[in-house]
């Protein structure tokens, strides 16, 4: 089941074998009446239209730790079906047998019994809803594609996420995330950082560069459209379809793509001719150069913009805000209906607004109920060289706000200049403590109870730049205060003010 290129129907022109009479080619023959030529032309056009309108063969792309592969999808009863044996085959030991009563599949030690025409199956003795009839064709068991999200966890013991419309199936936590940021060069370069190496196919067309990821489990950022506030490269759009993810970079100048850091970084640069033709740079405005994920950078207010000399050339000053937990990781259950993961997203959005209103571009790592591993969070913060990483937590225990810096684990296995992942924060810890103290001072100024502490809290110790965690508790016994917008804004405004006040220090550390 290797990766296959989707078979496409011809999109234009008439194939030679399309049944067009050879006489059509003989239009130069003067004895053919014009009416016959016209009829032949219309016939050719109709045939071309029919052929180009033939639906392309659909595929299901499966991404897992064991293998990434593609499978054909077939249409039955108006639904999309896929062979269950073929889905499981690359993942482990699997066998299937056609019996009198139905079809039995065995994956490792898990057995599933399916009956033709039935909408339910038995897996390990438990009922499983297929959402459509089970079909058997040539001893192949076909199940609706939508049933994979309920069937596969029974067989594999782990979660499976289906992007139904685009035909992409993610088994386990295999997703590749990315950030995008624009450099302050003129003309600018757009840099994509990916959490895993990628190798997309690249196509250019006037006004756009398209990267197609057919093998990589790339997933969408918080918003599919990323805007950068640049005339040269105004935006990039993420889309998915037929088992592939596509990143389209819109550019008003000719651009090319180059790869670095073992395929984890893709840089979209102007071609030599367009770079030479670009006008001299306008007055520097470093803070408008970053548009990570869904963030739309806002014009920097003159009052809060520091002198541009504090920013290293090529390094963008921006903050990473991490809404902790998410997905299956609920965090603390704050009440019967309120989970920590929901409060942290609200706090993250509020903090982004507060930071950006102070001219600090902000990347929110989780702006939905997505699941991100701690390593992925740290990788995303490190890849962009964020000036500061702020993890947000919420708690019902205690009063006010706690600001944490990393409690580094014992030793670490540093080898020469290579730092251990578990103690990557080591060199930046004084800077983190300085930022934490600034946040605490601002909280105190606003009469919010606050403590600063070290904490064994990942991924603070994995972040190479300044990193703090802010745990917000209610000021009274009522946990519902955590959802009150005015309380959230009170806290996030204090954090943003402190970060803006330490911008020179944090920016200098980036150099």
């Amino acid at each position, binding site marked *: 089941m290797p990766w296959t290129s989707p078979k496409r129907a011809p999109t234009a022109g008439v194939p030679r074998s399309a049944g067009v009479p050879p006489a059509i080619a003989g239009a130069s023959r003067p004895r053919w009446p014009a009416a016959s030529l016209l009829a032949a032309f219309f016939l050719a056009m109709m045939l071309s239209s029919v052929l180009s309108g033939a639906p392309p063969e659909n595929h299901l792309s499966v991404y897992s730790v064991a293998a990434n592969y593609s499978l054909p999808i077939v249409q039955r009863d108006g639904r999309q079906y896929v062979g269950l044996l073929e889905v499981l085959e690359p993942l482990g030991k699997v066998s299937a047998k056609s019996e009198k009563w139905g079809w039995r599949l065995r994956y490792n030690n898990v057995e599933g019994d399916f009956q033709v025409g039935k909408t339910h199956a038995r897996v390990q003795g438990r009922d499983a809803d297929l959402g459509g009839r089970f079909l058997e064709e040539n001893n192949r068991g076909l199940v609706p594609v939508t049933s994979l999200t309920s069937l596969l966890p029974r067989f594999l013991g782990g979660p499976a996420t289906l992007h139904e419309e685009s035909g992409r199936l993610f088994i386990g936590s295999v997703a590749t995330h990315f950030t995008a940021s624009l450099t302050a060069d003129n003309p600018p370069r757009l840099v994509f950082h990916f959490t895993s190496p990628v190798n997309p196919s690249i196509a250019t067309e006037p006004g756009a560069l398209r990267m197609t990821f057919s093998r990589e489990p790339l997933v969408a950022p918080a918003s599919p459209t990323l805007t950068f506030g640049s005339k040269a490269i105004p935006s990039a759009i993420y889309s998915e379809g037929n088992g592939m993810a596509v990143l389209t970079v819109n550019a008003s100048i000719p651009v090319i793509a180059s790869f670095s850091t073992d395929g984890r970084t893709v840089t979209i640069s102007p071609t030599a001719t367009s770079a030479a033709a670009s006008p001299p740079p306008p007055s520097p405005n470093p803070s408008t150069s970053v548009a990570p994920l869904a963030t739309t950078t806002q014009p920097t207010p003159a009052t809060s913009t520091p002198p541009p000399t504090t920013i290293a050339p090529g390094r963008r000053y921006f903050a990473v805000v991490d809404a902790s*937990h998410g997905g299956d*990781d609920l*965090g*603390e*259950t704050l009440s019967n209906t309120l989970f*920590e993961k929901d409060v942290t997203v609200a706090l993250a959005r509020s903090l982004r607004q507060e930071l950006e209103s102070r001219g600090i571009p902000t990347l929110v790592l989780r702006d939905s109920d997505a699941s991100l591993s*701690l390593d992925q969070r740290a990788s995303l913060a490190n890849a962009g060289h964020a000036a500061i990483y702020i993890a947000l*937590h919420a*708690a*019902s*225990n*205690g009063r006010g706000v*706690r600001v*944490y810096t990393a*409690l*580094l*684990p*014992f*030793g670490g296995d540093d080898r020469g200049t290579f730092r251990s992942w*578990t103690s990557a924060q080591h060199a930046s810890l004084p800077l983190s403590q300085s930022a934490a103290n600034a946040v605490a001072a601002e909280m105190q100024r606003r009469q919010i109870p606050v*403590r600063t*502490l*070290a*904490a*064994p*809290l*990942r991924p603070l*110790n994995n972040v190479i730049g300044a990193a703090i*965690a802010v*745990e917000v508790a209610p000021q009274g016994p009522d946990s519902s205060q955590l959802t009150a917008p005015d309380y959230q804004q009170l806290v996030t405004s204090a954090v943003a003010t402190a970060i803006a006040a330490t911008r020179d220090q944090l920016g200098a550390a980036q150099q």
Partner: protein
Amino acid sequence: MIPRHFVIAIAVLLIAVLALSGYAWHMRKTAASTPVASTDTRPLAPPIAGPSEQVTLFVAHDTDGSLRAESAQIPMPSGRQQRAEELLRALLSLYLDKSSPHVLGAGAEVRAVFLVDPGVAVIDLNSAFADKHRSGVLVEELTVASLIHTISANTPGIQKVKILVDGNERDTLAGHADLSSFYDVTAVNQLATQLQSTQ
């Protein structure tokens, strides 16, 4: 006409059915009213033998998020490893009390403590300890700091501590406190000093 002996047999069977039904109903009621112990409280090991000693336990307090030193008189065995286990069990007995300042889930236990030279302590907790632990950065940090500071303050020479759950590595205690790495005792002692000040 139904034979007499047949009628008698049916009557006897009916009486037996009614009597057994009544007995079953009674047994069910009795079982429902009998409280079921939520945890197995049977002793697994003989009582610790040894003279009572005064030790210092560092007890977490949720009300102000602090760690406070408290003296306790507990029987201590002679072996270094057994002493460390008894220390943590004494600490847990405080936390499992209803009036505890830092409540742990029922059934929380220290399965074992291993002291490995040079300077390594491995604390093996049971799954009830971690699974029933409340979630939160501070509340988890207080538990970890309390365990490590108590064992290191009373057992000289420990430099790093690893916490296992049911003998296995675990990412976090309850979603926050990292259990994947070795704790640096010096760093935890500094944290304990921070936690002993509520400001």
